[in-house]
């Protein structure tokens, strides 16, 4: 049954985005808000606002009981969880299902299955989707290690089964090093953990992070092509692109097909993202995990396909079957999203909450700004630092970077620090221009002082 009234169990820019998508479909919105968020843009847009608790997320946006009770009291017939918070929490989804309310996402069982790394990996293997080659359990003696490494392919990484936090990890380049390092690692594991068990997996140096957007209705699944999110700091994406223009066409086709295969195997319903590591040397890709929610970077997929992913989520949750097939989906041009955070790049990205004294959005064609900002808003310190996503589109990647520079120059935010200077520096960097990066590139670029140098 089509959704009539939607409870939005999230905050910030994604709550703004969901409010707008719901209204475009004629759906009434009920916005959840902590006591710190009553002045937010999402609350201003919503038809109704419900206070769910104090500022601390643990007592508001993460409180399953408080939110389920608020949904029931609101009379909403569906709930959109956004990203983060309770969006992939099976206990929350079970409680929503038990209350007879539609969850905009897959069912609790699918979330539990795909949220468990080992189970998701097993599903991928069963679907014939490549995973990072590994020993699948402990390696026995040195002879076994030799056999396994030959099968997996060098370089390999050996880790202590009982270890954690990167301790005892060794990168092994060839068989000669293996002969030396396996006994060493076993002795060390025994000394450190009282257990000499080791396991082994392929070491992918300079991996790129590629992900595929899918949409499923519980029976049919289509993909909306891929995104590249290799520019990361502390495992947080800072700059994303669609498509992954540096990958050969054949690889991108195979990626899309593999994502559909896996999503179809679990009868996936909702928007979802399958994340992969890509080894540019061997041109191989490996599934790592699936996110069963809307992602921050969905707008770049919308920019190249023309499909509104959040509206699609709402229509599918309302019971519609997919209204297009794979052959109807085309991609045009190139899109880039950069994350504008309230952080000071010149001071080790120290958070910068506070009053937004001046604000004017970026101007120009093919520029989109998804944001929680307005002039006079006071950014609160309780939640993550994302204040906006700047999305640009152009016929090709080079032109998209130029459009991004125009957009960055015309965005005005005063009163708080933002990551705009970081993105300006990245947009004029040669490696970025050539697409010559990987998941460790940004941190080494910053460690080399590139951000400081770019200010002169």
């Amino acid at each position: 049954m089509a959704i009539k009234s939607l409870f939005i169990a999230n905050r910030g820019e994604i709550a703004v985005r969901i409010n707008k998508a719901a209204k475009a479909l004629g759906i009434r919105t009920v916005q959840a808000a902590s006591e710190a968020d009553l002045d937010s843009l999402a609350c201003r847009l919503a038809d109704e606002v419900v206070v769910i608790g104090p500022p601390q997320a643990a007592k508001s946006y993460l409180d399953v009981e408080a939110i389920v009770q608020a949904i029931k009291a609101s009379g909403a017939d569906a709930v959109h969880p956004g990203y983060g918070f309770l969006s992939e929490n099976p206990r929350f989804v079970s409680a929503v299902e038990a209350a007879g309310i539609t969850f905009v996402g897959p069912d609790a069982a699918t979330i539990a299955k795909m949220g468990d790394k080992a189970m998701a990996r097993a599903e991928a293997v069963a679907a014939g989707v490549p995973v990072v080659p590994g020993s699948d359990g402990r390696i026995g003696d040195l002879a076994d290690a030799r056999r396994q490494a030959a099968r997996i392919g060098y370089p390999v990484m050996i880790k202590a089964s009982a270890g954690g936090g990167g301790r005892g990890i060794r990168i092994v380049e060839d068989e000669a090093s293996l002969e030396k390092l396996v006994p060493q690692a076993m002795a060390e594991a025994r000394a450190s953990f009282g257990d000499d068990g080791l396991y082994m997996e392929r070491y992918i140096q300079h991996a790129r992070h590629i992900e595929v957007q899918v949409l499923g209705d519980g029976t049919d699944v289509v993909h909306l092509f891929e995104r590249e999110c290799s520019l990361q700091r502390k495992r947080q994406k800072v700059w994303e692109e669609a498509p992954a223009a540096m990958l050969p066409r054949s690889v991108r086709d195979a990626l899309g097909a593999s994502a559909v295969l896996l999503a179809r195997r679990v009868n996936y319903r909702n928007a979802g993202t399958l994340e992969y590591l890509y080894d540019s040397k061997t041109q191989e890709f490996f599934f790592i995990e699936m996110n069963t929610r809307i992602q921050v970077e969905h707008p770049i997929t919308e920019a190249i396909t023309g499909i509104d992913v959040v509206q699609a989520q709402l229509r599918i949750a309302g019971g519609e079957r997919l209204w297009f097939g794979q052959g109807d989906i085309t991609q045009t041009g190139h899109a880039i999203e950069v994350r504008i955070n309230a952080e000071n790049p010149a001071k080790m990205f120290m958070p910068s909450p506070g009053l937004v004294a001046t604000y004017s959005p970026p101007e120009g064609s093919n520029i989109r700004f998804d944001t929680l900002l307005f002039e006079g808003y006071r950014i609160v310190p309780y939640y993550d630092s994302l204040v906006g996503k700047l999305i640009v589109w152009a016929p090709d990647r080079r032109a998209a970077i130029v459009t991004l520079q125009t957009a960055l120059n015309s965005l005005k935010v005063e009163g708080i620090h933002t990551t705009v200077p970081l993105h300006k520096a990245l947009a004029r960097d040669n490696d970025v221009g050539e697409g010559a990066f990987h998941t460790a590139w940004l941190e080494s670029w910053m460690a080399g002082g590139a951000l400081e140098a770019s200010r002169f």
Partner: protein
Amino acid sequence: MVKQVLAPLPGLFYRKPSPDAAPFKQEGDPVAAGETIGLIEAMKSFFPVEADVAGTLARFLAQDGDTVDADQAIAELE
């Protein structure tokens, strides 16, 4: 001479390194220059609140879990 220890940025103030741990400092404890007396949580990151000078922690002006502003006095040292 009373010296104040100020919050380096706005956020939530905590006296303990984790919910189950003991507080960094009790009132009456000696404090060395540069020593951590609490944490500020801001935008999902944690930052230490450090004393600039040595002294004795006379009293806390902010309680565990309080919302504090940048440069707000957190504690007094004597």
